């Protein structure tokens, strides 16, 4: 069975819109219509470029507008939006950047994109009151076997570059101040305990510990798995940082030790 005329028309129109880098127009459009088809093409390509720019403002600053929007067109060619909401468009952009040779000279660009993506996801994640730090005090010895449910907004981004310092240097809206960027990697905890996204640095051991807990380890296991790290690990400090930032939503009741409560 042949496609209906409407379906065939839309198929041709869509193919011309999606054609990468060309100035194709659909069959059957000629004269002014063929020329003016560019408006719809521009709405698609430029519009999605703007969405990507809104999601990755520091990546855009780091490479400049011309480079960024050329890159956005390449990204769009392989990652056309499939969701009707564009708020979270660009999920695969960090991975795309890792395999994008023209941007290879900015070595930390993919990590910066991961940090910006984490912030975007945190911003729009579900609203949940974070676990109150005092809840830990109530656990006593049971703490060792306790597991945690991560807050929906929590993300931990690890990097071999001082990614948070670079990000912060690009927040003023002006040119970076030129203050020296420290050497070495940084890990970043991204949370949203209220309506504002928070970022704070973690040591690599703290980050590993946090990731272990977020992936469902109980506290003892999470600590054990950090021991391979070279740096000295301060459990109290690590817990303090994670809890104060609102990294967790709840104690994991499905894995609670001693779930039998006296008197109930």
């Amino acid at each position, binding site marked *: 069975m042949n496609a209906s005329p*409407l379906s065939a028309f*839309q198929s041709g*129109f869509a193919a011309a819109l999606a054609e990468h880098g060309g100035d194709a127009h659909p069959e059957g*459009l000629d004269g002014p219509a063929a020329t*003016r088809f560019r408006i719809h093409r521009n709405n*698609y390509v430029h519009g999605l470029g703007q969405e990507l720019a809104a999601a990755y403002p520091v990546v855009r600053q780091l490479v400049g507008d011309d480079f960024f929007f050329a890159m956005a067109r390449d990204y769009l060619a392989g990652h056309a939006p499939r969701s*009707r*909401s564009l708020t979270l468009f660009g999920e695969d952009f960090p991975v795309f950047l890792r395999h994008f040779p023209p941007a290879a000279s900015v070595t930390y660009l993919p990590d910066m994109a991961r940090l910006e993506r984490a912030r975007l996801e945190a911003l729009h994640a579900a609203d949940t009151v974070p676990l109150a730090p005092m809840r830990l005090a109530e656990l006593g010895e049971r703490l060792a076997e306790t597991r945690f449910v991560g807050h929906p907004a929590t993300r931990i981004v690890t990097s071999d570059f001082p990614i948070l310092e670079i990000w912060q240097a690009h927040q003023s809206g002006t040119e970076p101040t030129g203050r020296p960027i420290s050497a070495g990697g940084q890990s970043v905890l991204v949370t949203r305990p209220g309506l504002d996204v928070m970022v704070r640095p973690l040591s690599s051991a703290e980050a590993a510990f946090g990731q272990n807990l977020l992936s469902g380890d109980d506290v003892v296991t999470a600590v054990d798995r950090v021991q391979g790290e070279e740096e000295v690990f301060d459990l109290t400090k690590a817990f303090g940082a994670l809890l104060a930032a609102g990294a967790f939503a709840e104690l994991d009741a499905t894995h609670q030790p001693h779930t039998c409560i006296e008197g109930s």
Partner: protein
Amino acid sequence: MRRTIDRTPNDRVAANIPDRAGVGLKAAHVDDILQQQPDLGWVEVHPENYMVAGGPRHAMLEAVRETYPLSLHGVALSLGGAERLDGDHLRALRQLVDRYEPGLVSEHLAWSARDGVYFADLLPLPLTTEALTQLSANIDEAQEALGRPILIENPSHYFTLPDSDIPEPAFLSEVAERTGCSLLVDVNNIFVSANNTGIDAEAYVDALPIDLIGEIHLAGHVRDQADEQLLLDNHGAAIADAVWTLFERLITRTGPRPTLIEWDTDIPAWPILQAEARKAEDRLSVFRPVQGTAQ
């Protein structure tokens, strides 16, 4: 911060959208609106921007919705597509309808997706008998899924499609007859389309079925830099005088209807947008029956 999460729908004004001027709600204006509580009939948003789990967008919309009736104006349903509607998107839209209790829900005579790819644009379709059947079936499905009638808006056109053989006002009338939907008349889109495709804007307005018009849109446009015959519906300027005149022609026929000012690019300071809404309100007032006065 948590107050917005705990609020119950009972704290809200009623959903019903009055026959007054409203504005497209922009994040840049929310602080002004919440602090000043201006005398504004209603606000409208694109539901696609609120299809996220939580965060400041919902907090903002909940706060505004307490004081103002809300209209949801969708851009992504692709009602004019030859394919089935996107079930995930319909469900997300239904969730927002249930959560925010909008007074009106509207969409476009357009398509925007094909084979799962969303083109983020209101794309034109030839107005044919086949398109009439397809669009009507899609509107039926949407209204069924949302549990309420919707409104359909006339889009801007930049060129004529060769196979179109039904004039747009007649096409919209027939769709409304078949599906029970109402019409959202975008006066700027009529003006822009008339300029770009050579139709008569006044004749278009005069051909619209007045009883089916549930909402009106007004916005600014610009002349294209490369093609000076072409007008672009960019929602980025004050409403043109000629569009105000066309609006007056329309409301002379319909009487006051909910009328929205859309300003989405080069967004001005709140007082400028508010002044545009007042201009619309002034014109609507002229056609509002005055109590106790014989017509």
